């Protein structure tokens, strides 16, 4: 069966708490994320971007609505099946990198593979190759604390991509970086992460990186308010991609 969209969210609502103290984070969000490009979910703080991302990742259950990833109904899966699906099919990039401080760059990048049961040597080898592609070949054995913010985020990118996921979910990947580092990370993402069989969804309010998006989805007050398709997003030069 051919899957048309990587991610399909329909009428998703999310309430935190109940009764008079209930807080409504999402009010029926509907979203489609296609393969082969970068979709950016943008909007002001508190508009529900991160909540929607958590629901798409299977880390939060919506109060109402439907979520399909790669053609599968995420909400119909058991918790365990969701975890396995997440491990196989999704890659994550976090705002604060969330690297394990005790592991080297190569080991950090291999965590997803290790979790999937790949033997340590093979996992670290694959991660190291990817890190070299990302320009960190000289930093494979470095601990996160010795790396700059941009370098740490590149390790996080490698960790997200090492197990070859079909969906990559990013939460404010450039928020903790200066302009140049943020742009460098996005160029890497555009060069390495974007493939015809993969979707990249980025939650961000960093307008400096909007020009890398194929699709920009605007959120406000728990609702999707606009979707903009962009024909010619920024693409890295061959030198940048290397």
């Amino acid at each position, binding site marked *: 069966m051919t899957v048309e969209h990587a991610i399909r969210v329909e009428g998703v609502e999310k309430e935190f708490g109940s009764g008079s103290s209930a807080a409504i984070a999402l009010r029926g969000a509907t979203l489609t994320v296609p393969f082969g490009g970068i979709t950016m979910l943008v909007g002001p703080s508190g508009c529900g971007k991160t909540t929607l991302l*958590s629901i798409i*990742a299977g*880390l939060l259950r919506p109060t109402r609505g439907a979520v399909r990833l790669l053609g599968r109904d995420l909400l119909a899966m058991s918790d365990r099946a969701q975890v396995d699906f997440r491990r196989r099919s999704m890659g994550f990039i976090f705002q604060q990198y*969330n690297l*394990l401080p*005790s592991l080297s760059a190569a080991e950090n990048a291999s965590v997803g593979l*290790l979790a999937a049961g790949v033997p340590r040597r093979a996992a670290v080898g694959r991660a190291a190759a990817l890190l070299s592609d990302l320009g960190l070949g000289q930093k494979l054995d470095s601990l996160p604390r010795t790396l700059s913010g941009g370098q740490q985020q590149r390790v996080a990118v490698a960790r997200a991509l090492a197990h070859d996921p079909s969906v990559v979910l990013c939460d404010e990947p450039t928020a903790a970086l200066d302009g140049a580092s943020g742009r460098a990370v996005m160029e890497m993402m555009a060069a390495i992460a974007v493939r015809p069989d993969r979707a990249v969804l980025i939650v961000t309010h960093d307008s400096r990186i909007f020009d890398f998006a194929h699709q920009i989805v605007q959120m406000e007050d728990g609702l999707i308010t606009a979707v903009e398709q962009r024909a010619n997003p920024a693409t890295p030069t061959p030198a940048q991609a290397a």
Partner: protein
Amino acid sequence: MLFVALRMLTFDTAKYLGLIFTVAFSTFLISQQASVFASLMTRTTSQIRDVSDASVWVAHPEHRYIDEIKPLSENALTEVRGVEGVKWAVRLYRGLSRAKAADGNFRTCITMGVDDTTLVGLPRKMVLGDPQALRQPDAVFLDRFGYSFFFPGQDFRLGAELELNDRRAVVAGIVDSSAPFVTFPVIYTRYSLALTYAGQERNTLSLILAEPESGITPKQLAERIHARTGLTAMDAEAFGWQTIWFYVRNTGIPVNFGVIIAVGIVVGTVVASQTLYLFTLDNLRQYAALKAIGVRSATLAGMVLVQSSVVGSIGFGFGAAMCVSFFFFTRNMPHLRGFITHSEILVGTAALMALIVVGASLLSVRRVVALEPATVFR
């Protein structure tokens, strides 16, 4: 993910050592105090354990324990010898006498009078001299710590003299006897000579040592002797336990040690549990990231258990080593003589520490399993 768990554990050396030494000191506190208590109780039976030639002890029915004996009449020995199954039975004297060295240094001593003919009742291990030397006139054997008390700084030598209740006694041998409950020196001499050192009473026979014929167990013989003579008779082990229970019931020792050991267990449990739990809390964000990436809760729980097990094992190892070292380095101190680490106590402490570590792990595992992975997006 095993190596990830171990790296997380050992990455911060200060925290790692803190965890290890929390478990180590808890182990030390519990095992050391329990061993001191057990050793103290064992010391109450030292004169019983040092008699290795006889397996049955016969005492007056009204005796309380080895340190409170009502003397028997000489007829008792004849009666015991007449019981079927008794291979032999001999006299044993146990009392206190005051010994004085040439320099005026004096001390109350435990005086053991062994059978004149067979010398049954002597400890097996001689530090200096020959057991047969006890047959010489005025001969006594002194335990090595008693010798060091009466003749401080002097090498062991035979022929040194003491006064025992104003009578001359010649040190004809030095024995390695077990440390008594009180740190009195122990003097061994022949039964007949012991009576001359003791204050005179009508009856002087403290105890009778007997040995069963082959095919009869000490317990069976003890029952027969009791049935035939009305005297109290026990095998050596039961006689030792009678003494231990006397101290347990009639002194504050078990209560005091019990309180200390209980405090050790409570403090060890609380501190070790809290430290292990706080370590997990410190790493919650890392666990949340791993969970978001797709690491199963069971795997994370396994990681926590591995970390706790490693801390528990190494900490227990250090604590046990500290306990064993304590008793090793204090083994020659007179007041700590005979104090050892009991293997049963180490096994018990290991089980207790395992329980503490598993308990703390379960708290941590519960927290990790319940952890909301979406927190990594906040």
